[in-house]
């Protein structure tokens, strides 16, 4: 049985997945008479290609997407849900996975996705600069205030050194908003998902005030920075708000340029720690035959058992078993981030979520660009989100 498998993984992810596919085809695949044909499609073009092929009923038997896409594909009827028997036959067990990531593959009560790994938001910090600024490189800031204080100290080091960088546009803008929001209030929406939750305005106001304080402190570049990793690699920035998928960039910078970086969980601003995350989910598009599905599941199960290799590409594993592995425990960075697995929040698995994300992104961009103040931004959020729901 030969199946097509399309992924949007580029960089180290891509290398890892193609190694795994090759290994699978030689070992378990060969045993089970399953051959996986991998096609790694650059993420810019992935949606176009996948959706066009889905629309024409020519989709591959297996694919991987970010978890926020699951409700959309599912709602369009582009996917076929996994049945409990199927999963069981393949040896895939819900309980082996971190619940939040498993649930991200669910839509309207059906299971469409099986998670592969997660990528939460967190911070990278520059140990050398910390040292220069008289901070302890081994105890990174854990709260908003500490971050600010550290950034101020680093900013003072020189004209072209920035205290910190955080995303002011694009996906980072709304992801960081959510991370902070959930620290104040676990619910974005009301019960029946028709409007924002009761506490939304208050929580959002808190978040925006926190951010305003960061802006006012004047410890970050005025404009959007396209590729903070490069500044970081040049020892020109102290703290970067980013996500685990960038880990390899920093590793490379460490190897090539001797940069000493550290990772730390997303700082706490609100009442309790929380951070935004998404997962990669295996999906089976509609139209695959029963044999294809079985073959695909065989592969999913096989990859699931290799969570560690996958995590090494800059992920937090979804499979609980990985955390117990010794080699995982040896990876300091990964452990640091993985420790926050209980505070991870996924965006609600609803169709409108990407639209809401867009509303939040645009509102935040307007806020960062100075086109709206705190109150206006909160109102924009409330109105915008309500209209998308």
């Amino acid at each position, binding site marked *: 049985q030969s199946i*097509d498998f399309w992924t949007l*993984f*580029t*960089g*180290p992810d*891509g*290398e890892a997945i*193609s190694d795994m596919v090759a290994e699978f085809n030689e070992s378990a695949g060969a045993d089970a008479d399953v051959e996986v044909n*991998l*096609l*790694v*499609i*650059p*993420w*810019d*073009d992935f949606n*176009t*290609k996948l959706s*066009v*092929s889905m*629309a*024409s*009923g*020519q989709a591959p038997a297996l694919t991987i997407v970010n978890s926020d896409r699951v409700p959309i594909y599912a709602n369009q009827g582009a996917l076929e849900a996994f049945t409990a028997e199927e999963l069981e036959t393949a040896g895939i067990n819900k309980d082996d996975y971190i619940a939040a990531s498993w649930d991200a593959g669910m839509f309207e009560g059906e299971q469409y996705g099986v998670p592969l790994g997660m990528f939460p938001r967190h911070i990278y910090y520059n140990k050398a600069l910390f040292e220069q600024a008289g901070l302890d490189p081994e105890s990174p800031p854990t709260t908003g205030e500490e971050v600010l204080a550290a950034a101020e100290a680093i900013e003072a080091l020189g004209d072209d050194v920035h205290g910190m960088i955080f995303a002011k546009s694009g996906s980072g803008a709304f992801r960081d908003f959510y991370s902070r929001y959930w620290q104040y209030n676990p619910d974005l929406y009301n019960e029946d998902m028709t409007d924002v939750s009761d506490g939304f305005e208050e929580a959002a106001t808190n978040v925006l005030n926190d951010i305003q304080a960061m802006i006012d402190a004047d410890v970050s570049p005025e404009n959007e920075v396209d*590729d903070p*990793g*490069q500044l970081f*690699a*040049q020892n020109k920035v102290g703290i970067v708000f980013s996500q685990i998928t960038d880990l*390899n*960039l920093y590793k*490379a*910078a460490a190897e*090539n*340029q001797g940069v000493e970086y550290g990772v730390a969980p997303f700082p706490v601003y609100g009442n309790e720690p929380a951070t935004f995350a998404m997962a990669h989910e295996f999906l089976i598009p509609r139209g695959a035959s029963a044999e294809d599905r079985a073959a695909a599941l065989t592969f999913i199960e096989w990859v699931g058992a290799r969570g560690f290799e996958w995590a090494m590409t800059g992920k937090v594993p979804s499979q609980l078993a990985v955390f117990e592995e010794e080699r995982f425990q040896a990876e300091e960075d990964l452990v640091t981030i993985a420790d926050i697995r209980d505070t991870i929040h996924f965006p609600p698995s609803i169709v409108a979520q990407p639209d809401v994300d867009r509303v939040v992104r645009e509102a935040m961009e307007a806020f960062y660009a100075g086109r709206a103040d705190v109150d206006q931004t909160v109102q924009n959020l409330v109105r915008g989100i309500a209209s998308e729901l």
Partner: protein
Amino acid sequence: MRRKQTLRWTALLVISLLWILPVASLILFSFAPPAEVLSGGIIPSDWTFGNYEKVVTDAGRGVSIPQAMWNSTVIMLVQVIGVLLLDVPAAYAFARLRFWGRDLFFFATLLTLMMPGILEIISLYEMMSGMGLVDTRMGVILPGLARVIGIFILRQFFRQVPKELEEAARMDGATNFQVFLRIMVPLAAPAITTVAIITALYSWNNFLWPLVITNTPGSMTVPVAVSYLSADTSAVLNYTVILAAAFFTSLPMIILFLFGQRWIVQGMRPTSGIK
């Protein structure tokens, strides 16, 4: 006269320098080790052929640049020939012949030029999969034959050929088709070359459609292969390889252009036989 030449030369030099700057760094850094990118600057401080080696040999996950170049060459040749065969007669008819619906057809044609191409993709894909042409070279080629721009360009040029020449040929006993083939086509040679070059470039660089319709190295075109290559490793660290691939794969087009341009600019002025 000398002074004017010098002036023109200087102006061209300035523009060329502006134009070549990105190209130059593209080429320079395609010879640099990947890490050079992070340090910036105008000229890399270290040199290597590694990027090109990777481009030529690395068949990362089955994507092969040489194979893609072969595919692209075949596709380009077929498309250029096909487009010329279709467009040149049609453009002549649109420009010079009288027939019912001429302007209607022409403006319909023009309208499609204005439609964002991305909209056609789904219908085309369905069509191609209906014909079983998904992931084949023919699947890449066919939709590229129906391009409007050649019609548009050629029509304008045909309109400029003096009527007297056509009349003289008619007097000489030429049939409609002979007037077209023996008089109009040679006189529009610069325009036809232009369209051929433009079609070739389009064919070589077209991305979206080949991306969607091809899945395997056997049919992948250069841009698709390059984009897969760029998906190979971490974006920044792979920069130089992408640059090398870009430069390497554009070499055939540069050569084609170097030869083709003489044809554009050495045309015969259609008015030179007329008092």
